[in-house]
C-alpha cells in the first residue's frame, strides 16, 4: 500500500476519477498529433489525403524520403540535410564543450570580478531575438564567405549551445563540494590534476546532459539555417518545411515521414536524459 504522502496529495481522493479523466484528456490532445504523424507516415500515396484511421500501412515512405526518388519528387535532399544537421550540431556542441567547461568551472569555483557579467551575457543570448544578430551576420557571412558553410553554422549555433552548457555546468561545479579538489591538492596533486582526477569525473553526468540537451536545441533550431545557409549546409528543420512549401505537388505522407525522422533524435535523446531535463530547460533555475 502506498503510504507516503507527497506535498499536496490528499489522503482521500474524492476527485480522483475526475483528475484522471482530466489527465487522459490532456494526453489525448498532446499525443494525438504525434500519433497522426506516425499514421500519415505509414500511408501510401493514394491514401495520403484520407483522414481515416484504418488503412494498410507501409514503410515505403521512409525509404523514399531518404533516397534520390524522394529528392526527385519533392526537390528536397533530405539525406544531406540529416548529415548537415549532425555535422552542424555535433560540431557546435563540441566547440561549446571545449570552451564552455573551463568557463563554467571558473564561474562555479571562483568568485572573480566580471564572472557574473560573463554569465549574464551568456543568459542574455538565450533571450535575445535571434534576428538582431542574424541580420548583421548574414551581411558579414556573405562578405567573408561563411554563408552556407558548416563552419559558419557551428559558429552561429554557439548562441544556442554555449549558454546552455555554461549555465548547466556552472551549477554542477557550484554544487560539487570544493573540499574534494582541496583534498586532492593536499594529497599532493597539482590543480590541473585535481581537476581532471576529481572534478571532471563528478560532473560527467552533467556534461552528458548538457551536451545532449544543447544538441537537441541546436537540432531543432530553424532560424539560423533558414537564413545563414542555402543548400550546402541546410538542415533537417529547413528541409521539412520545403516539403510543403515547394511549388509542385505536396506529398503529405512523405512530409510526415520526414518529420518523424527529424523528430526522432531529439525524442530519443530527451528520454535518455529525462532526469536532467528540468535543470537544463530552466538553466539551473529549477533543480529537478
Amino acid at each position: 500500500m502506498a503510504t507516503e504522502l507527497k506535498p499536496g496529495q490528499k489522503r482521500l481522493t474524492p476527485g480522483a476519477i475526475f483528475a484522471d479523466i482530466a489527465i487522459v484528456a490532456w494526453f489525448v490532445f498532446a499525443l494525438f498529433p504525434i500519433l497522426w504523424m506516425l499514421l500519415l507516415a505509414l500511408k501510401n500515396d493514394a491514401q495520403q489525403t484520407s483522414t481515416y484511421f484504418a488503412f494498410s500501412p507501409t514503410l515505403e515512405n521512409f525509404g523514399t524520403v531518404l533516397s534520390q526518388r524522394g529528392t526527385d519528387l519533392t526537390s528536397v535532399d533530405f539525406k544531406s540535410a540529416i548529415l548537415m544537421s549532425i555535422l552542424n550540431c555535433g560540431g557546435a556542441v563540441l566547440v561549446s564543450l571545449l570552451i564552455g567547461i573551463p568557463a563554467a568551472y571558473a564561474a562555479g569555483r571562483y568568485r572573480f570580478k566580471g564572472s557574473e557579467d560573463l554569465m549574464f551575457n551568456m543568459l542574455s543570448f538565450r533571450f535575445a531575438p535571434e534576428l538582431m544578430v542574424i541580420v548583421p551576420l548574414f551581411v558579414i557571412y556573405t562578405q567573408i564567405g561563411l554563408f552556407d558553410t558548416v563552419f559558419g553554422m557551428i559558429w552561429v549555433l554557439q548562441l544556442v549551445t554555449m549558454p546552455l552548457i555554461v549555465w548547466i555546468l556552472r551549477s554542477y561545479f557550484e554544487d560539487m563540494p570544493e573540499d574534494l579538489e582541496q583534498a586532492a591538492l593536499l594529497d599532493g596533486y597539482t590543480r590541473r590534476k585535481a581537476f581532471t582526477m576529481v572534478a571532471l569525473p563528478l560532473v560527467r553526468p552533467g556534461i552528458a546532459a548538457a551536451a545532449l540537451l544543447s544538441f537537441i536545441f541546436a537540432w531543432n533550431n530553424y532560424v539560423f539555417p533558414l537564413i545563414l545557409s542555402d543548400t550546402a549546409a541546410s538542415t533537417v528543420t529547413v528541409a521539412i518545411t520545403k516539403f510543403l512549401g515547394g511549388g509542385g505537388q505536396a506529398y503529405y505522407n512523405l512530409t510526415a515521414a520526414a518529420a518523424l525522422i527529424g523528430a526522432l533524435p531529439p525524442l530519443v535523446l530527451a528520454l535518455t536524459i529525462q532526469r536532467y531535463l528540468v535543470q537544463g530547460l530552466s538553466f539551473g533555475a529549477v533543480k529537478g
Partner: protein
Amino acid sequence: MGTLSLRGVRKTYGSTVAVDDMTIDVGDGEFFVILGPSGAGKTTTLKSIAGLVDIDGGQVSINGVDMTGVEPYHRNVAMAFESYALYPQKTVAQNLASPLRSGRSGSFSQDEQQKRIDAVTSTLGIHHLQQRLPRELSNGQRQRTALGRVLVRPADIYLLDEPLSHLDAKLRAQMRAELKQIAQSSSTTTIYVTHDYQEALALGDRIAILREGRFVQIGTPEEVWRTPVDTFVATSLGQPEMNLLPGAVRGGRIEFLGGAGSFPAPADLGLRDGQTVQLGIRPSELEIDRGHRPGGDRWLRLPGRVLLAERLGRQVELDVHVGDGQLIVVEDSDHAAPEGSEVTVQIDLADVHVFDGASTAADDGEARVHRAAPRLGSALGRHSAPMPEEAHQ
C-alpha cells in the same frame, strides 16, 4: 614532524572577518586543539594553514619557512575534512593510496603502500572495508576513512577538522581514546579542530579557544578549565554549562541571588563598592549538603528548593531555586534530592570564579554569550590567572 607559526593571520570573506589577528606557535610534535562554536572560524584557520584559502594578511610558516604564496601541494600538510571529502569513485583503499601515489609525500613502492594502508585501516577498524566505495559506508566509516587518508602518509603537520563529529556518542568516545593513543605514539604535529570540549580536554596538549575569528585563551587543559579568562571560555567548557550569577559588591561583600548568597570580596581583586560582578560556578563543583559541613569561610552555603531533578545517567541534574535565581547542580544519582525538597547547596569558595560585571546577554539559545566578561579571579582570591590583556578596560 614540524613546527607551525601563525603571525597576525587575517582572512575575510567580503565584509565578514573569518579569522583575525591570529598568532600562535605550535611546537614540533604538539597536539594543539582549537575549540570553538560553529562559525568561529575554525575551518578557515585550518585551510589558511593548508594554503587552501589565500589569507589577506599575516604569515603562515611551517618549519620556519614562510609559506605565503606556496601551493597546498608543496606544504606537506595533511588534512581530514569535516565533510570527509572522499573521492566518490575510488574505494577506501584507493582513497588512502592517493596521497602515497602523488609522489609528493615521499615515494612508496606498491608493497609499502599496501603495508601502510593495512596498518592504518586496522587501527581505525575499517580494514574489512578497503574495497568499498564511500557511498557504501556509514557516516562513521567515512569519517574514519577520511582520518585514515591523513594518518597513512608522512607529513609535517596533520590538520584534523572535527574528525569525530559525525560518529555516534559511543563510537566517538572510543575513537577519541584511539586517537589519543595514536597521537601519543606518533610525533606528527597536529592541529585539531572541534566544538566538543571533552575532545579538547582529553586530547590537547594545549587548547586554544576561538571566538569570532580570534583566540580568546590559549593554555593547557588544566589552565583553561581552572582559570578561564572570561565567561565565554568558562561556558565553552563543561556540560551543563557553568552557572553565571550576577552580583554586586556591597560593604566589602559580594552579594548575589537577591541576597541569598554573599561572601567577603577578595582583597586582591581590587573591587570597588557598588561594582557589579558575575560569579561563575560549575554545576559539578556544587554539592548538596548532606550533613557533611565543612567549616570555615572557605565554603559558600546557599539554601534553596529543588525545582526539577533530571536524570542524566549516573548523575542527576538539579534545577535549584535559590533567592531570586536558579542554580544548576549536578549530583550523583544515589544522593539526589527529590523535586520539591528544601536543600542547602554548597561549594568551596576556591571554585567560585569572579568575572567582571559586563552583561552577558544570552538570546534564545543560539549564540550564547554576546559579550564575554573577563575573569577577575576566584572568590578566594587565590589561583587567579595572570591578567590577560583584554581584562584591562
